[in-house]
């Protein structure tokens, strides 16, 4: 590959300022030096190196504090205008390892609900930042509403069952919920962000420290991908939390979805870019029909074009969404119905595109695409895992309904 990724996969560079570009470049160097150039070693010692590389990224480079305000010791990227820069950071991480990307995306999504202007909650940030964004690597986990079980009648968030409750008790809240499935890190999380129903069934989010004795974790799940995430089902049995740990402002759950769609979109675009690099190398070193370089065969070239097309458009979609979030005066806050719906549509489209890109590219790589030695199969498994989690219920049923509701003013769906 003779051209740099940014020359090929054009994006609106003006959305990212020079200071942000400097940090993004540092993350790219981390990705290249720490993981991409050492894929084999990284694969063979994955669990150990996952933690080491995560620490380098979060503590040495300091990304754990990226979206904290400067006065809280952060980088000060806590304004919606930073959305394109944050998405770029996630793209660089996703290019190296989607699992580190997901952990980072979830952390930023949760922190965004606390730190992002205009909803910066200084008291809560002062309480949480020293513990969860300090000198130790901390893991955040997110529990969204989703499917219910037959026989249950649950409060709903736009059709999705809210399986946890947060009810006031004394000077705080009590959180309850059985066998809830986080989207990541249930087995190891230091802090959970749980979408709960209050006592009248209205959605809110509760922040639950993982070291509470009444937080019960199930066994670590074995999943298709993202296994370094160490996910597990979690139960909250009358977990008491301070009153300030519950955020119930209008649209807060929508905000969570909006940022999650953007940031997981960034992760998947990054993974797609690295897959593009890999399949590009493959197509230049393999011959077919007794001597033709693979990429020079028109049929193979058309498959390669599909790969590039899907990743290319995904990256454009990503920055479209980032730009929409970054301009609340034009389009509304991240929790507004418009921005939330746009994030659902684009978030879904990016995951589908990147999944298709990898599926198509694997067709050319044949068995090598399936072999762990070539590393692309990890990208394939990781992206499918992200996509499955984002689908939520019944193959994106809620996303479809959200979209129809916004564009067609549906009232009863």
């Amino acid at each position: 590959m003779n051209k740099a990724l940014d020359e090929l996969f054009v994006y609106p560079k003006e959305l990212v300022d020079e200071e942000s570009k400097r940090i993004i470049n540092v993350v790219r160097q981390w990705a290249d030096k720490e993981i991409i150039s050492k894929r084999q070693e990284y694969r063979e010692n994955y669990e150990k190196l996952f933690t080491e590389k995560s620490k380098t990224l979060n503590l040495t480079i300091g990304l754990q504090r990226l979206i904290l305000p400067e006065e809280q010791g952060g980088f000060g990227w806590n304004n919606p205008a930073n959305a394109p820069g944050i998405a770029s950071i996630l793209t660089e991480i996703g290019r190296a390892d989607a699992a580190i990307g997901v952990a980072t995306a979830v952390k930023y999504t949760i922190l965004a609900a606390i730190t992002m202007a205009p909803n910066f909650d200084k008291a809560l940030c002062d309480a949480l930042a020293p513990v969860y964004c300090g000198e130790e690597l901390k893991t955040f986990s997110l529990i969204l509403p989703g499917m219910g079980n037959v026989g249950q009648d649950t409060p709903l968030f736009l059709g999705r069952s809210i399986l946890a409750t947060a009810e006031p008790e004394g000077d705080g809240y009590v959180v309850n919920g059985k066998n809830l499935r986080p989207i990541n890190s249930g087995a190891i999380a230091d802090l959970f962000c749980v979408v709960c129903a209050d006592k009248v069934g209205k959605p809110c989010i509760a922040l639950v420290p993982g070291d509470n004795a009444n937080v019960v974790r199930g066994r670590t799940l074995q999943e298709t991908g993202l296994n370094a995430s160490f996910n597990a089902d979690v139960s909250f049995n009358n977990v008491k939390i301070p009153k300030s740990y519950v955020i119930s402002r209008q649209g807060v759950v929508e905000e969570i979805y909006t940022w999650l769609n953007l940031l997981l979109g960034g992760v998947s675009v990054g993974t797609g870019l690295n897959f593009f690099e890999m399949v590009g190398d493959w197509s230049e070193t393999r011959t077919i029909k007794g001597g033709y370089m693979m990429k020079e065969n028109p049929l193979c070239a058309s498959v390669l074009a599909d790969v590039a097309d899907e990743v290319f458009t995904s990256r454009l979609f990503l920055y479209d969404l980032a730009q929409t979030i970054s301009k609340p005066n034009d389009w509304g806050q991240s929790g507004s119905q418009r921005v939330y719906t746009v994030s659902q549509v684009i978030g879904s489209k990016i995951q589908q595109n990147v999944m298709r890109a990898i599926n198509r590219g694997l067709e050319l790589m044949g068995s090598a695409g399936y072999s762990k030695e070539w590393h692309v199969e990890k990208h394939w498994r990781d992206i499918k895992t992200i996509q499955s989690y984002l689908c939520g219920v019944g193959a994106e049923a809620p996303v479809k309904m959200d979209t129809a509701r916004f564009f067609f003013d549906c009232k009863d769906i």
Partner: protein
Amino acid sequence: MKNFDEFSKPEEYISPMDKHIRSVIRNWAAKEVMPYRRKYDEDWKDHHIIEPAFDKLMGNKGVGLQKALFPPELGGWGIGQSDSAFTVSCALAEEVGRADTAMAVAFMVTYWPLTTILVDPHVNWRLAKEFAPMFCNSDKAVFAANAMTEPQGGADIENMEILGGKTIRTVARLEGDEWVLNGHKLWPTNTGGVSKLFSVPCTTKPGSNDPNDFAMIFVPADTKGVTQGGPYEKAGMAADKNGDIWFEDVRVPVWYRAHGPGMDAQVFREIIPWGLAASMGFICGAMLNLYEILYDFVSTKTYKNKPLKEDDHIASIIGRIAGDIDICRILTYEAARMGDRRNKPYGYPIHSDEVACKMRNLKDFVCDRAVDVFGKAMDVLGPFGADREYDIEKHWRDIKIIQLWMGGKQLCQVEAARYFFNCKTL
């Protein structure tokens, strides 16, 4: 619908053995595979858990399937002489594939090279007698492999129509009454130390595209000069080991060649439809299992406090999934019937362009639908889609390689174009 057996298949064409075979294998799967299959991924290298299940499927103390293709006179079941050989194979592929497609491919690839010497009208009795004891007298599972793919060319070796074997670098040289083989193969199913017997597609004249210079030569795995590498680590299909094989001055008797000049190229073309039909059978088996799991899931999980299956939108998705399974099964049995018509006046020989191209077309279609259906089913499961507890993700990982193997999607497309549009240069 009563259960997954109701998915369409041509009842008037299926083998009289169908019901019995399905029942036996379904019992084996329920007892020996289903309870353990979630542990298979970690067992990819050693097969501590997988091997006993194979023994009970293939060996004489179990179902004994590894001898099924051999003639009864040699201790087998005579399926190679049956008019329903393809249809029976599809049923076997489905039932084993429902439990684990990797086990299905490992077991059925044992038949694959043997079809060249055991299936009417090309039975090579001398070789059949030579190898029958290896498979018919063993209590343990005994595997065979078709060592086809070479490092330099990927699917080129299967592109016989255009390349005619001219890219093959594994060379057989005749010395007295022995063939001397040299070459390097990779990725065959049942390598990585598993196989007892290889068939080796090779050339007697490097660079030639003359069918007379193409040879299929059988090589017992313990022959001096055969070296097998360890198994590759893969995204799935743990029960199917794949690795490298090197042949270095390997000597076998001259009569270990399947049939001889010309006919070897023909039987090599004939094994392709076997592989394609079986591949479709594996896919159908996995799809039937998907349906079982999905049925339970959409009946017990809710959206808007109603079972998923009772939501109109979700019903449209699962309806399409079930519809695709039904169509794929119909197409799979049509492919099998195409194979079973090979000796009939109204059929085509299985080495013909008609059968090869139509079967590649069907395999491509069924695989495409499977990749889509399994991906969509994982999406229906949402946060549970990637969870190994639900088994759909295992099938999702496994069926992708079925799409990729045997030349993959692009070879299927090119062969379809070549046949349907009379392309001359593809």
